[in-house]
């Protein structure tokens, strides 16, 4: 019974992932990340994604501060932050965030403040969406592991 529960949870995860892929929120890089998770690092994906969230929040905060300075926005620094954001987003497969970063960077290179603000809002929105969805994914995963975990010890005993 529990095993079936685990299977159902796995199916839920797959459905959620499929949706995120379909929406273009994630790309195959996320699957690569999942493939790196093995016995030696069982929580690798959530570990990396949490690091990513932590870093991204700092970056978003920095970007907002830079843009809030009406008199003088440091576009160069903004570009550096965006490069980092792009790098980490693409590394975990957050495709839409990466794409928004590209647009954001283009706007910052043109010193287009209005464009930057719009991009920042989209970015924040995308970030929240991704974060929520991935948290959902990890929750299901945890339940699945628990469900599976309950069964294995029983078998072993």
């Amino acid at each position, binding site marked *: 019974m529990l095993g079936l529960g685990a299977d159902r949870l796995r199916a839920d995860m797959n459905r959620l992932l499929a949706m995120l892929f379909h929406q273009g929120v994630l790309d195959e890089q996320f699957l690569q990340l999942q493939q790196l998770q093995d016995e030696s690092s069982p929580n690798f994906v959530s570990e990396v994604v949490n*690091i990513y969230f932590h870093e991204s929040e700092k970056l978003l905060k920095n970007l907002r501060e830079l843009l809030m300075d009406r008199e003088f926005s440091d576009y160069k620094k903004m570009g550096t932050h965006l*490069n*980092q954001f792009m790098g*980490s987003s*693409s590394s975990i*497969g957050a495709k839409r965030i990466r794409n928004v970063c590209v647009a954001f960077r283009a706007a910052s290179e043109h010193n287009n403040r209005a464009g930057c603000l719009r991009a920042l809002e989209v970015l924040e929105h995308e970030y929240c969406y991704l974060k929520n969805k991935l948290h959902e994914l990890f929750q299901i995963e945890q339940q699945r592991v628990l469900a599976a975990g309950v069964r294995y010890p029983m078998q072993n005993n």
Partner: protein
Amino acid sequence: MAALQRVAQSSVSTTASSYGSCKGGATSSFSAANEMAVSDRFPAGLRVLVVDDDTTCLRILEVLLGRCAYQVTACSQATVALNLLRERKGCFDVVLSDVHMPDMDGFKLLEHVGLEMDLPVIMMSADGRTSAVMQGIKHGACDYLIKPIHEAELKNIWQHVVRKKWNGNKELDHSGSLEDNDRNKRGNSDVEYTSSVNEGTEVILKGPKKRSNAKEDDDGDMESDDPSTSKKPRVVWSVELHQQFVSAVNQLGLDKAVPKRILELMNVPGLSRENVASHLQKFRLYLKRLAQQQSGISNGFCGPVESNGKLGSLGRFDIQALAASGQIPPQTLAVLQAELLGQPAGNLVPAMDQPAILHASLQGPKRAPVEHGVPFVQPLIKCQSNVSKHFPQSIIPAEDVSSGFGSWRSNSLSTVAPSNNLGGLATHNGSMLMDIMQQEQRQHKKTQQQSVLTESSRLINVQPSCLVVPAQSSTSFQAGNSPASVNQSCSFNRSTVIDYSILSAQSNNSSLNIGHIPTGNLKTPSILDGYSAPGSVPSTSCSVNAGNNTSHQNSAVPFCDSRQLPGVLHDMSNIQGLYVDKSGEMLDQGPLRNLGFVGKETGIPSQFAVDDFESQVSNLNRGKIYVENNGNPVKEEPSMNLVDNAKVGIPILQEFSCSDFMSVFTE
């Protein structure tokens, strides 16, 4: 973040703690790589330092690299990474760095690494725009990966490590030989001794400096200079120019020498402060490297790798000679050769002392151009009269170190002497050799042989003592620089110093070799061989040689001219036959190279030897081509097995390698 940091630190510490052991493991795998390009385990254990301020990427990279079985050290700050690199020189094979980092720009890190440790650096960034990638190239990155980075890309990064080494070796060779060659052709086709002398000097001096540049030059065939100087007209540091530079530095004192003052002292129109600054930097690095090598410290990587690459290359050419026969007991042999080597230490010294260098070079230089056919040069010659007489031409065995090796610093050379018996034997050998060898060479050899016979002993040449010394010290081989030893058996003499080798062989001689050569056989006392090659090799080699020795010996001589060869190589000599030269590539492999070949001992020696000669010879003349061929074999066989020989053409020899042997004699 905190977690990541911890991870990074722990990995660092891990590395540190295991450093000793790792070193060994890594080294061995590395050498294997050099030799064969690919060994069973090779890319595994590659020591990678990853630097990225983005902890997300850093963590992913760490796992990805771990998947490739590399030994990973992760670092989230460029400054920390740089300190790590400085503290643990030789503990990393390749650096992977992000471009944008808050504490230090990735390009800055790249520059430091390029100048201070000459490691391959791979840049990474999410910014894949052409301008960004171009910047990476200009700064000397050996690759530029665009994030997200895939495992497949990381699986291949070991190639940069191997390529760097190879290129490093080539550079040396090129620096020595190519430029010189060109110059000769352009300028004076008839090379006078004097001129050659200068060239020799140049080479020597240059060797080092070039080394540092080498990678850039080689990399592209495009000859772009350092990234930093790529846009400026390239300044060719000719021998003369370098001499001026060195004398200015000496005048000021190395510590106090600043580009501006040096420039004033040199007073050369058209030379900019930047040119001098970059040359000074390279010169200092060069000195530093030499010092390191000599000290022998860990070779592990550093040692071997770097040295090999650089030093090794220098050294490679050497030669030896030797003789002996196992089979033919009575005889002895004689011959010898020269060698070269670049010993690091020696080099340094010399470099510093101009006089010494010059001296050396002068002596050595005679080398004559290859074209002439006479390949030999005389080395220094302290020889005794005997020697000189015999070889009037100077021929003799010496080599030119210089040319070939720019790298070498030392020159070496020498000749050898024969022993008593020789007479008859020698002849025989000679003949065989002759067949093989080119006529010219043959002649020389004969000459040599004869002379040898006649002379009976003594020989030796010595060369610059300076060089020698180092070599001795090295005994260990560490660097691989040098090495060699010589041996002579019986007769030799005097010379103290270095020189080469000769081996006499008496039977056994096992010595030859490499490695350790043994003094035992040789009478000569000190000897060293250096082989970069790994220790193990040496031993093996030893034995092999012996057999061969006998016959060949002579061969060595010819090489000297490396200059002509473009490629380089040098090698030469050998007596036994073997040797190899590795030419560029082969050399590159560095450590391996040393090994050389070896032939088998047994009977055939002479023949083999001959073959070897040929090849060697040809190498000289022809240059690269041959060399390459040889090289392959060499690579394959690092260990010295026969097999390669076959390919190479060298039949039996095994080991040996190296060319460099130097021997030293203490007398």
